[in-house]
């Protein structure tokens, strides 16, 4: 209970201080110093709360509670007006009067505490009574608590500040909204061509009645005219179209009409296309083409017939009948008998011409086929027939070979052999089967042919040839192993030699080896470009040869000699080689097929190395240095920069020298003609020697080439600095060098190259771009509707946001 009291009093004192802040500290001057100090501290506290500047709630700490307590105890003794109302309420025989405001007064406390009794005097006896709690103080306490717990309301910003924040927020919002235009604007700026107006307007069709209905006669003259018209019952505002016309207009909408028209157009186009095709096909004179076409058709018909048979037997029967009828007709017509004009001529020619003979046969076969009574039999028979028919279709390639029965075509043969040879190189085990297959195939093909014997003979020949080659190939792998081994050995040895840093003796040996093995003629050695050829030559002596291989190679060479004009380089080599080594040429021939790329590459580098080795002089040098030097030499083996430069300079000097002008006219004053040259005297006479120009500026500068070509007259027409959008002069030159005129370009390209950047339609109003045009949703709200809202009445939340923005 006393605790509670104390609390109450603490609250009371504070309230008193609050209310007393107005009267000022004059009364307090008389009080004890300690009291004053305490009171001042409290006052300061209360003032702080009143100002409500504190950023957060200011909770009452227990220590302050204590302060309030002690303060009250002392204060009880000192009479002070300001305590009045509060202390009275604590007295036993004092009845609290609730303050009721009945009239306007200045002394109104917001805490429901009146200062009514301020005028009354305080008697000491009143204070002497025991202190009792009163329930009425609870409300005061509550209020006080509320006051304490309430957050401070922030000071409103000044008007300018607020406006500034408003503006900033609005600006940010607007700029964001505008940024949606960025891609469109960029696109339009970079566009190759812009056509204005951007949006195509649909031309509004306004019927004349509508125009007329909106118009009235106003002037007396017009009225007069109208009167006249009315008198004669002429149509004035009536629809100018009759109902029938209107109905017809309505009957077919524009789209429908368009569609129909398009359909018709398409049909027409198709028809004309087919007609043109038929005409074209009819015009083709090639008999072969027609033959193939006819056969294709027949086959197709057959296939369809088969399909039909499976799907619909009755229809198939009908079809069959039709075929039968055709056959009968054919029989009657004797079309394919050998009685026609063509057939007769062919019959004459058949003796000499293989083709004619074949054609005759074909025709006979056809006749036979057509006149044969068709038996509705099993499918297999039909298929057989089909197969036969196909068998008759001898491929052209075979025919060609047949034609050169006496001497097989070397080209064909070679190809053939090559192909088989390659196949064999790939997998020698698998070889016999495909060959046999091929042979059987060819046999099948040839069987129905006329000159069976000849063909058979020929094929026998070919087969034998093939067998031979296979035999050779079979022996090949064994023989091939060895050269490979030897070459790899060589590589290995050379590598080893490099890595171990050969001593001189070794090198000398190597040198000797080289000189002995090298087959390169002296001329070739001079030319650095041909160094690359060496590896091939180097290998040669070390390779072993088998007798079989040599034989085989020899055979092939004699084939190839017949067949192929040899490439130049090869020829040279083969010429060169016999001089030094009589054994090599055959092997060299074979080499192309034997040495694959891999082999070439692996042997290339050692050869270069072997070249470099003898040139290095390494008597006292460190091994590393030597290594380095060699490395560099290897890396730049091919290029001699200085010589190149000198050559270039010489050329430049030559080119810049003025040329003599030769004005001799052959045949002028003497005989002319083929092989006759004007006389030396005449030439001397008409040769105008250009005077020697000033000496070149780089005459005494060995390391420099100064170009003196700049032509002052041409410079006036040349661009001096690279224009802006270009980043490299080559770009610019390229644009200049590509012509855009129709002289150099096709019509289409010309049009494309000369499209103007901006195209406007004459007489059309170009409206500003719209968000809807480019696919954006325009702001649905009207600009106007928003304006009418009062911007001043912004919600508290909005204000807070503004504040936050301003802080940011």
């Amino acid at each position, binding site marked *: 209970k006393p605790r509670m009291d104390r609390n109450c009093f603490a609250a009371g004192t504070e309230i008193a201080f609050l209310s007393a802040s107005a009267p000022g500290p004059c009364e307090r001057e008389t009080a004890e110093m300690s009291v004053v100090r305490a009171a001042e501290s409290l006052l300061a506290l209360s003032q702080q709360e009143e100002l409500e500047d504190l950023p957060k709630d200011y909770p009452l700490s227990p220590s302050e509670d204590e302060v309030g307590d002690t303060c009250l105890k002392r204060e009880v003794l000192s009479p002070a007006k300001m305590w009045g109302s509060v202390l009275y309420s604590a007295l036993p025989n004092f009845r609290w009067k609730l303050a009721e405001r009945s009239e306007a007064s200045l002394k109104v406390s917001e805490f429901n505490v009146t200062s009514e009794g301020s005028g009354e005097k305080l008697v000491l006896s009143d204070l002497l009574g025991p202190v009792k709690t009163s329930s009425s103080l609870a409300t005061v306490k509550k209020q006080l608590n509320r006051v304490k717990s309430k957050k401070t309301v922030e000071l409103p910003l000044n008007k300018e500040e607020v406006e500034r924040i408003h503006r900033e927020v609005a600006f940010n919002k607007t700029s964001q909204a505008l940024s949606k*235009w960025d891609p469109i604007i960029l696109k339009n700026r970079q566009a190759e061509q812009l056509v204005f107006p951007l949006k195509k307007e649909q031309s509004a069709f306004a019927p004349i009645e509508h125009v007329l209905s909106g118009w009235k006669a106003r002037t007396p003259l017009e009225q007069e005219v109208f009167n006249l018209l009315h008198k004669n019952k002429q149509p004035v505002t009536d629809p100018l179209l009759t109902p029938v016309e209107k109905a017809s207009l309505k009957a077919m909408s524009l789209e429908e009409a368009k569609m129909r028209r398009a359909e018709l157009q398409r049909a027409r186009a198709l028809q004309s296309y087919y007609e043109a095709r038929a005409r074209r096909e009819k015009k083709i004179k090639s008999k072969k083409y027609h033959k193939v076409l006819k056969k294709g058709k027949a086959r197709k018909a057959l296939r369809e017939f088969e399909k039909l048979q499976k799907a619909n037997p009755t229809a198939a029967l009908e079809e069959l009948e039709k075929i039968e009828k055709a056959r009968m007709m054919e029989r009657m017509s004797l079309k394919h008998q050998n009685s026609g004009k063509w057939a007769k001529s062919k019959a004459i020619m058949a003796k000499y011409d293989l083709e004619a003979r074949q054609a005759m046969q074909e025709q006979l076969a056809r006749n036979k086929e057509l006149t044969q009574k068709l038996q509705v039999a099993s499918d297999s028979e039909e298929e057989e027939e089909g197969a036969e028919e196909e068998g008759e279709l001898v491929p052209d390639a075979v025919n060609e070979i047949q034609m050169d029965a006496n001497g097989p075509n070397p080209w064909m043969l070679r190809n053939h052999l090559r192909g088989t040879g390659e196949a064999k190189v790939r997998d020698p085990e698998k070889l016999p089967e495909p060959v046999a297959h091929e042979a059987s195939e060819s046999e099948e093909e040839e069987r129905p042919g006329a000159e069976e014997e000849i063909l058979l003979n020929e094929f026998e020949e070919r087969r034998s040839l093939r067998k031979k080659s296979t035999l050779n190939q079979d022996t090949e792998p064994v023989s091939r192993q060895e050269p490979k081994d030897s070459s790899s050995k060589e590589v290995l040895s050379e590598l080893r030699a490099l890595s171990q840093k050969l001593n001189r003796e070794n090198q000398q040996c190597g040198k000797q080896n080289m000189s002995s093995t090298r087959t390169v003629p002296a001329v070739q050695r001079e030319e650095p470009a041909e160094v690359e050829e060496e590896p091939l030559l180097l290998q040669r002596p070390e390779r072993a040869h088998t007798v079989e291989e040599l034989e085989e190679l020899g055979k092939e060479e004699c084939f190839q000699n017949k067949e192929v004009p040899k490439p130049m380089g090869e020829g040279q080599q083969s010429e060169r080689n016999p001089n030094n080594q009589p054994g090599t040429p055959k092997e060299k021939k074979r080499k192309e097929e034997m040495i694959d790329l891999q082999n070439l590459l692996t042997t290339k580098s050692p050869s270069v190395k072997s070249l470099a080795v003898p040139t290095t002089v390494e008597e006292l040098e460190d091994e590393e240095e030597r290594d380095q030097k060699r490395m560099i030499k290897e890396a730049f083996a091919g290029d001699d920069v200085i010589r190149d430069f000198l050559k270039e300079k010489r050329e430049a000097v030559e080119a810049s020298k003025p040329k003599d002008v030769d004005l001799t006219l052959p045949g002028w004053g003497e005989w002319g003609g083929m092989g006759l040259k004007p006389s030396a005297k005449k030439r001397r006479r008409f040769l105008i020697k250009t005077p020697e120009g000033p000496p070149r500026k780089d005459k005494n500068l060995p390391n420099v080439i100064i170009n003196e070509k700049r032509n002052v007259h041409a410079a006036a027409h040349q661009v001096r600095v690279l224009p802006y959008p270009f980043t490299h002069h080559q770009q610019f030159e390229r644009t200049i060098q590509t*012509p855009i005129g129709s002289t150099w370009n096709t019509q289409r390209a010309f049009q494309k190259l000369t499209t103007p950047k901006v195209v406007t339609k004459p007489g*059309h109003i170009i409206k500003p771009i719209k968000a809807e045009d480019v696919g954006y949703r325009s702001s649905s709200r009207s600009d106007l509707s928003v304006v009418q809202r009062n911007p001043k009445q912004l919600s508290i939340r909005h204000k807070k946001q503004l504040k936050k923005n301003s802080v940011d």
Partner: protein
Amino acid sequence: MKVKMLSRNPDNYVRETKLDLQRVPRNYDPTLHPFEVPREYIRALNATKLERVFAKPFLASLDGHRDGVNCLAKHPKSLATVLSGACDGEVRIWNLTKRKCIRTVQAHEGFVRGICTRFCGTSFFTVGDDKTVKQWKMDGPGYGEEEEPLHTILGKTVYTGIDHHWKEAVFVTCGQQVDIWDEQRTSPICSMTWGFDSISSVKFNPIETFLLGSCASDRNIVLYDMRQATPLKKVILDMRTNTICWNPMEAFIFTAANEDYNLYTFDMRALDTPVMVHMDHVSAVLDVDYSPTGKEFVSASFDKSIRIFPVDKSRSREVYHTKRMQHVICVKWTSDSKYIMCGSDEMNIRLWKANASEKLGVLTSREKAAKDYNQKLKEKFQHHPHIKRIARHRHLPKSIYSQIQEQRIMKEARRRKEVNRLKHSKPGSVSIVSEKKKHIVAVVK
């Protein structure tokens, strides 16, 4: 014996009518057509010369005003109709095809300060020195009717400019402040101010229609948002801006015509640096208007000339002047982007071609192809000195010419001084300010 002959289909080589062109088979083998570059160069040279020969831009002068023409307005629906307001308060409506005045209205006492048409083209608004805003019907009064405005709004202060919204029944006036008006009301629905100064011109953005730009005599350009009823940003330049114009194809680009002889193209999102400074005039620039294609704009200047600038170039591509044309006060680019109109002090409205050497009228396809080809050739060889010289050559009146020389000297002197200062001061203490930044005093948020 049959002799086979080569035969050709006559359809391939005989023309159908006499007017058709002879079909000439062409061989495009480049070896048959040597010297591409020199030949095209010569063609380009000739095309450039011909362009200068045919450059006759002046089309017509519309006379009838009895005082200087102060403002011009285009009709939004009709290409042939132009409205003009004069310094004596008279508004005239012209027909360009007939080159005649079709209507005269005594609209105000004193100057007609501003004129604008409604987006639908049925009426137009004028503001004058008599502190009134008047709305007029586009069609003349009927027979026996009086010439009277549809509405008249009496204001408290003088209105110096007016512009109409591009979609809605809203217009904006400027004077002491920027007022946004509903057409149906007699008081503004919204007034926006930022400081107190006389605002000389206000323009609606044609694309984002809620945006406004104004320029005031305290050297600033202020942007407003109508929806949020607040100004957005203000940029202060060296000298006063007379008017601004928004690019009709690029929503955030506008160009300001300044008293310091320059025009400044701004991106409204970044006002601290103009996108481009357009220099060529030798006196204050009074008016500017964009081509409807948004690629070029035309400016009218106090130096008695109008110039056409590409938006992305700082130098003008064309200058128009005549002996009799005085200070050009207003200029407009017609909505088909073919013509330019300018109204000047000496009471005339002049009609110019936007492309000085363009042939008017319908072109045949061959003419068009030749024109396109020549244009491309000129473009291709534009950097070559001969062609550049010819293409850039313009005759100028002596006053302008001498002033250009004078200003060049002045500019050079300033530059030299700057360089010297930079050279002789402590490194880092003086920095070179770019031409773009030089003229911007401040950006106020």
